[in-house]
């Protein structure tokens, strides 16, 4: 038998136990955040996060670059840019090509290839590319819409190799690239597309 007081609590319970409205985009953002965490932990060996290890490695890399740069620079300068093996310059630089030997030693940025991704959805309000190269972060590669053609596009800098990606439409709808191969491996239950980037 429920007395008056218990009845009050039962009424409170019945109101508070109602399922909340779930915003699909919030849930999508959650999955993207978890995917980013997965990517981060997958590429970062545990020892790398120990205090001192990262600093020592960076110091070593800088020192090596300085030493090799000091040894190589006269030769490179005499050969002149473009005289030897060259690689594509990283996206965002001025287009000048860098000597491959120096680029490979100091950083692998010069190996990046510029790739334009295009997507057609005239009804979309917002489109972005998510993939292993954005660490599945929906904010890193927003696409811009060309008003004349209705095409969404973005240019990203990618390392040579295989990449998996998809388009995120209006923060909620996950779409494979219809022009690309479907990735056989799945990421958080969502279909992806494969992009192969060749060596420069």
């Amino acid at each position, binding site marked *: 038998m429920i007395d008056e*007081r218990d009845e*009050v*609590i039962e*009424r*409170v*319970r019945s*109101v*508070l*136990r*109602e*399922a*909340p409205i*779930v*915003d*699909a985009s*919030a*849930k*999508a*953002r*959650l*999955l993207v*955040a*978890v*995917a980013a*965490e*997965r990517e981060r*932990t997958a590429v970062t060996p545990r020892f790398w996060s120990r205090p001192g290890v990262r600093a020592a490695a960076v110091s070593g890399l800088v020192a090596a670059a300085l030493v090799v740069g000091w040894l190589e620079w006269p030769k490179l300068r005499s050969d002149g840019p473009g005289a030897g093996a060259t690689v594509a310059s990283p996206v965002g630089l001025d287009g000048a090509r860098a000597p491959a030997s120096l680029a490979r030693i100091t950083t692998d940025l010069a190996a990046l290839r510029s790739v334009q991704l295009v997507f*057609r*959805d005239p009804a979309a309000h917002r489109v972005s590319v998510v993939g292993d190269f954005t660490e599945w972060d929906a904010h890193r590669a927003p696409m811009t819409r060309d008003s004349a053609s209705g095409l969404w596009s973005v240019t990203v800098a990618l390392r040579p190799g295989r990449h998996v990606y998809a388009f995120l*439409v209006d923060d*909620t*709808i*996950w*779409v*494979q690239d*219809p022009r690309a191969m*479907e990735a056989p491996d*799945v*990421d*958080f*239950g*969502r*279909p992806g597309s494969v992009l192969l980037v060749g060596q420069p």
Partner: protein
Amino acid sequence: MSRSRPLRLVHGEAPLSLSPPDGESNGADERSLIIHAAKGGDVRAFATLVDIYYARCLRFALHMLFDRFDAEEAVQDTFVRVYRAFPKYREDASFEAWLFRILANRCRTAGARTRRRTDVVHYGEVPERPARVHHDLALAWREEIELALAALPIEQREAFLMHHVEDLSYDDMSRATGQGVSALKMRVKRACDALRAALTESDDD
């Protein structure tokens, strides 16, 4: 081009079923399998766990924080932390207790942040109880409940929600909060007393 694939589908497959036709124990077994697979790094199983627990976590966070943005953020942080800490999770322990421990911590942190934010807001003189015209009695009742819930001390609110809304046992609540069972029972009792008093008073008005 199709743009209607829901996020949880895997190449057109249906998501894992959690409602076996032959009883609750099989459901619990299946859930254990999903937790085991997620702990082992199966991303599809983890996405299924999100599907299972997202709404419950959001409900708890909304009742703790009373702000949708803060609640969604707390739930997101919770699942990212669950993913990160899964290797340390012992499968013989209650998953729900572990999940709600992380969620309650995130809510406490977010609540403290919100209180700091609102501490600087001065409203001046406001009536103790704003005058409202309620055409919808159910809506009025809901608002009264939310006001009464918000007036509870945070540890009482947390205990009440865990026990009466999320159906956690006192043992699981103890694991989730780090408090003893007796203390939690006392918190729930005090919360019930306060809610009864506030809502009975409301009915009398």
